[in-house]
C-alpha cells in the first residue's frame, strides 16, 4: 500500500489555513448586511482580512485547530491500520510545523501530549469500506469554543413546548442558538440530527456539517426546515461574535436517523464561522483536494 503521509499533511495544511470558498462567500454576503461603522461590521472586516492573511501566509485561520476529525472511505484492499498510522504521523508533523496547535490533553493528568496524538479517538478517524475505485478522505477541524455550545435534546421537551415532530426540532434548535449567543464564534453553521441514539445522533450532526452551505436537502421537509431555521435564527439578532447584528447563522444542515420507539433525540452541533473542512481524493496515482462534497 502506498504511503500517503505527505498527502495527509497537505490536507491538514489546506484545511487549517484556507477557508472553503462557500463559507467565505457567505461571510462576504453577511458583511454587506451590517451597518457601516457598527461593531458587527467591524467583526466581519477582521474575519475576512484574517481569512485572506491566513491563506497567503499559510498559517492557521484560528489558533484553536480543534479536534481533527477524519472520515476515510476506502475501496476494498486498503489497510485501515496503515492509513491510521499515516494519518497520525501526518498530524504530528503538521503540529511540528505549526499548522496545528498541540491539543491532545490527558483528561486525568492534564498533560498535553505536545504532538496532537492522544488515544485512538484523538485525532478522530472514522473508516468505512465502500464500493468505489477511489479513496476519499474528509477532514474537519472543529474547535473547542463551538464544540462546547453544541446541545442534545430529548423530546418531548416541556419547557420549550417541543414535541416529537419537526416543529419540536425547530424549537430546540432555536433554543440552542440562543443558548450559544456569540460563544461559539457566531455566525455559525448548525449541523442537526433528528433521531438515532445519543452517540449516533451527535455523530450524524457533525457529518451534516460536511455538506456545502449552498446545497439543497433532497428531503423537501428538511429543506424547508433548514431554510426556516436560517431565517429565524437570524431574527434572534445575536450577530457576529454576539455583538448584535443581522447574521447569526450562515447555514443549517439537517438529517434524520432511525430511532427507538422510546427515544427522540435532536442533536445540534455548532460550527464556528471558521468552518474548516477539506476533501482529499486518491484515484490511482493522483491525489487532489477539493472543497466540495464531490466524488
Amino acid at each position, binding site marked *: 500500500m502506498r504511503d500517503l503521509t505527505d498527502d495527509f499533511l497537505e490536507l491538514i495544511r489546506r484545511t487549517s489555513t484556507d477557508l472553503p470558498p462557500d463559507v467565505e462567500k457567505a461571510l462576504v454576503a453577511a458583511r454587506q448586511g451590517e451597518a457601516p461603522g457598527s*461593531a458587527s461590521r*467591524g*467583526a466581519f472586516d*477582521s*474575519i475576512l*482580512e*484574517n481569512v485572506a*492573511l*491566513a491563506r497567503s*501566509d499559510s*498559517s*492557521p*485561520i*484560528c*489558533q*484553536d*485547530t480543534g479536534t481533527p476529525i477524519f472520515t476515510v472511505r476506502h475501496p476494498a484492499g486498503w489497510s485501515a491500520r496503515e492509513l491510521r498510522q499515516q494519518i497520525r504521523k501526518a498530524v504530528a508533523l503538521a503540529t511540528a510545523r*505549526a499548522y*496545528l*496547535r*498541540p*491539543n491532545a*490533553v490527558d483528561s486525568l493528568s*492534564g*498533560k*498535553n501530549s*505536545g504532538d496532537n496524538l492522544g488515544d485512538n479517538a484523538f485525532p478522530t478517524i472514522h473508516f468505512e469500506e465502500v464500493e468505489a475505485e477511489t479513496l476519499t478522505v474528509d477532514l474537519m477541524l472543529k474547535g*473547542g*469554543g463551538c464544540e*462546547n455550545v453544541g446541545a442534545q435534546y430529548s423530546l418531548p421537551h416541556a419547557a*420549550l*413546548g417541543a414535541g416529537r415532530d419537526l416543529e419540536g426540532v425547530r*424549537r430546540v434548535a*432555536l*433554543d440552542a442558538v*440562543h443558548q450559544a*449567543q*456569540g*460563544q461559539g*464564534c457566531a455566525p455559525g453553521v448548525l449541523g442537526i440530527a433528528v433521531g438515532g441514539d445519543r452517540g449516533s445522533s451527535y455523530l450524524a450532526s457533525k457529518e451534516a456539517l460536511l455538506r456545502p452551505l449552498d446545497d439543497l436537502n433532497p428531503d423537501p421537509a428538511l429543506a424547508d426546515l433548514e431554510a426556516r431555521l436560517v431565517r*429565524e435564527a437570524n*431574527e*434572534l*439578532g*445575536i*450577530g457576529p*461574535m*454576539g*455583538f*448584535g447584528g443581522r447574521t447569526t447563522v450562515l447555514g443549517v444542515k439537517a438529517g434524520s436517523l432511525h430511532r427507538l420507539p422510546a427515544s427522540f433525540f435532536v442533536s445540534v452541533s455548532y460550527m*464556528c*464561522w*471558521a468552518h474548516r473542512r477539506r476533501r482529499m481524493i486518491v484515484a490511482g496515482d493522483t491525489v487532489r483536494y477539493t472543497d466540495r462534497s464531490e466524488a
Partner: protein
Amino acid sequence: MIELTLPLSESAVRDLKVGDPVSLHGVMVTGRDTAHKWMVETFIRKTRAPQGDDLAAIEALRPLLSGGAIYHCGPVVAGLDTKAYRFVAAGPTTSTREEPYQAEVLQHFGVRAVIGKGGMGARTLATCQAAPAVYLHAIGGAATLIAQTVTRVLGVHKLEFGVPEALWVIEVRGFPAVVTMDAHGQSLHAQVEAQSRTALDRLLAS
C-alpha cells in the same frame, strides 16, 4: 479608535465605554483555564501549596499583571525547539470558563483589562465596576491577524501546562479589540442576551 498603552491607569479604564474600539500597545500576559485555576488555588485561596517554580513564576508575573491585561488565549507558537518563540496564530478563547475565577484574579493582582471573546458574567461585571477594570472583546478566530500584532514573545511561564495553557508574556502593537463590558456596569453581552431572549419568546409563541 482609542489607543491604549499598557499598563492602564484607573482613569483610562473609567473613560472606556461599551462599544468603543480600542488598539492596545505594550506588554500583556496570556492565561486561560489552567492558569486561572493555578493562580486562584495557589496564591489567592491557597488551597494548594506552591510547587516547583510556582513562586518564582508568580513573582515575575505580579508586576506585569498589576495594571496590566490578561489575555484569554491559547496560541499556536513556532520555535518551540529553539526557544526562539514566535506567535503564529493567537485569537481569543471563550472567556466564560474563567467566570468562577476572574473576579478574584482581577482584585488580587490589580488587573485592569481582561481580553477574550464571548463576554463574562455578572460577578466579573460587578468587579469591573468596583476595581475598576474592563472586558475587551477580540475577534474570535481572527488568529493570524491578531498574531501579526504580537511584535515579540518576551517569555513564558508554566510551559509544563502545555502550549495553549502556559502564561506567555508578549509585547503587542496595535492589538484590536472592542469594549463590551465597562467599568460603569454596562455589558453588551447582557443587552444582546436580553434582546435575543425576547426575539426567541416571540418565535416560540407562534
